[in-house]
């Protein structure tokens, strides 16, 4: 499609319409001193000098290609097969956006359709949208959808304290000003045992004013909770069950659709996407067909044209912008098309058995690591519930100090400091092990932790 800029005549007509002589006049309300401030910029560099500078800066980073990482907590380091880059780098695909005349880009729509289909298969749900920004915003959209599906009459939202703390913060940001009561995720005083049995307690909070219960599975602490019966209790009160999950774990776990989830959301980065310094990521979002009109975002569908040939369309097309406008239940119509394509490519490359093998590798490596760490003096693996690829380790020293030792002495990126979000979990480290970590690296972590236990002095 050609880019057609305004002509000089267009500009003059517009300037005349608003009553100014030149474009610069439009900036008059900005005090002159701030209009073109002097910026203290260094002298320009040649391309070669600039590349050298940036290369040197990037080498300051400690990256997961050179340092084994046991850090997860929502962002996961997995191997991204080469085919992902090969596919997403094709210039037909290489844009972050769904095209504004989408049906002209059948390949993009087909890719999104396949992404949606695979998300449905993985989650056991009927409908998937084309994706959201990230796991946190997908979760918040799930809460908003539950509020709308219950017609705004239910004003209470129950969040699990083992839902990712940052997701809980984003839900609060999305809901501010809507006069919604958010309960359930007070974490003060909760130890691991209390957090592991949290869903049973939360179900008792579900009442006639509750729009939804949001749980994370596996939880932020890595645990796999038995959610059988939870959906029935939630539905009996007329509320919805939102399950936030990890797509890799779904290679091994029962799909949330099978235990009654109404909405499944989560972070899709783990499949096909690098850690990317925290973004761009993608949020996946799936629900049941009966609620599809309340779903935010876009939905690509498969249809046939007038000659009976297969084609793809935006079935729910940019409704927020073009049709529902101020009546929309969400103003998010962007998706993360490129990231979703990367996830879809990785899923397609793995296939159902491949995703299961990936999940099993993560599971077994994490359990090997936990067994070894549990033998160390001063350390305790606190989980009692089954876990996937993350587990909680109580350390003999502050996590920050232990991690400093691991990095400086061993070149190992340690786990997540749970004390940042859970006051009762001071000195507790969330350790993540994925398939990219070699057994020797796990053994090195164990030795390093043992040393740190003896060496670190407060």
């Amino acid at each position: 499609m050609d880019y057609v800029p305004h002509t000089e005549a267009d500009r003059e007509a517009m300037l005349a319409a608003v009553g100014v002589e030149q474009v610069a006049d439009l900036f008059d309300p900005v005090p002159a001193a701030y209009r073109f401030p002097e910026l203290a910029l260094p002298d320009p560099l040649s391309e070669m000098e600039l590349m050298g500078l940036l290369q040197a800066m990037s080498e300051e980073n400690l990256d997961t290609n050179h340092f084994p990482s046991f850090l997860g907590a929502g962002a996961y380091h997995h191997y991204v097969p080469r085919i992902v880059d090969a596919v997403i780098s094709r210039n037909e695909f290489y844009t972050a956006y769904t095209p504004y005349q989408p049906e002209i880009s059948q390949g993009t729509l087909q890719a999104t359709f396949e992404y949606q289909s695979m998300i449905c298969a993985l989650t056991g749900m009927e409908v998937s949208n084309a994706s959201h920004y990230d796991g946190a915003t997908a979760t918040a959209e799930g809460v908003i959808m539950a509020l709308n599906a219950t017609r705004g009459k239910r004003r209470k939202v129950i969040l699990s304290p083992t839902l990712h703390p940052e997701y809980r913060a984003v839900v609060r940001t999305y809901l501010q000003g809507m006069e919604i009561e958010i309960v359930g995720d007070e974490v003060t005083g909760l130890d691991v045992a209390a957090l592991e049995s949290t869903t049973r307690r939360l179900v008792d909070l579900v009442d006639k004013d509750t729009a939804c219960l949001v749980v994370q599975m596996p939880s932020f602490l890595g645990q796999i909770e038995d959610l059988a019966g939870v959906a029935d209790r939630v539905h009996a009160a007329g509320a919805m069950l939102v399950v936030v999950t990890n797509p890799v774990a779904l290679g091994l776990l029962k799909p949330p659709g099978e235990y009654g989830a109404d909405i499944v959301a989560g972070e899709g980065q783990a499949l096909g996407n690098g850690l990317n310094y925290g973004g761009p990521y993608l949020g996946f979002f799936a629900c049941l067909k009966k609620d599809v009109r309340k779903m935010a975002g876009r939905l690509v569908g498969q249809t046939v044209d007038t000659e009976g040939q297969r084609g793809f369309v935006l079935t729910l097309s940019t409704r927020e912008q073009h049709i529902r406008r101020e009546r929309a239940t969400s103003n998010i119509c962007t998706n993360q098309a490129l990231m979703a394509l990367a996830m879809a490519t990785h899923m397609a490359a793995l296939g159902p058995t491949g995703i299961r093998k990936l999940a099993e590798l993560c599971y077994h490596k994490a359990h090997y690591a936990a067994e070894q760490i549990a033998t160390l003096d001063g350390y305790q693996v606190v989980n009692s519930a089954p876990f996937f690829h993350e587990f909680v380790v109580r350390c003999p020293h502050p996590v920050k100090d232990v991690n400093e030792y691991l990095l400086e002495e061993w070149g190992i990126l340690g786990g997540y400091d749970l004390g940042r979000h859970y006051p009762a979990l001071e000195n507790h480290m969330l350790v993540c092990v994925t398939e990219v970590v070699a057994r020797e690296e796990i053994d090195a972590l164990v030795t390093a932790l043992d040393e740190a236990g003896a060496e670190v002095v407060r």
Partner: protein
Amino acid sequence: MKVNPNLKYDQEHEWIRVEGKEAVIGISDYAQDQLSDIVYVELPEVGDTFEKGDVLAVVESVKAASDVYMPVDGQILEVNTRLEDSPELVNQDPYGEAWFVRISLDDPSQVDAMMDAAAYESYLEGLEE
């Protein structure tokens, strides 16, 4: 544009048909024509109460989403759930199959104040000029 002679109308193009202490509400042929192909109708729930002028329902077409307003005060007794699966009925039969809701009337005199078919026809003519 058809105007059903047996109904009352308001300026937002809702129609009402009184049946004793109850009434049935829908949108006019003019309204469905203006909206073009209707793809979704969002209805209220049985038991909801509305005042005159409240948003009763939302009709979404391929062009726009429009509010449907309550022409009188009342409580919802029944909603036409067929519209959820067959919104095109609104285009095909706005005065018949595609009724929206049945309500109990709080104040029947509010209906008397609405336009009859002749008044609505001249109102439409005014809009087209």
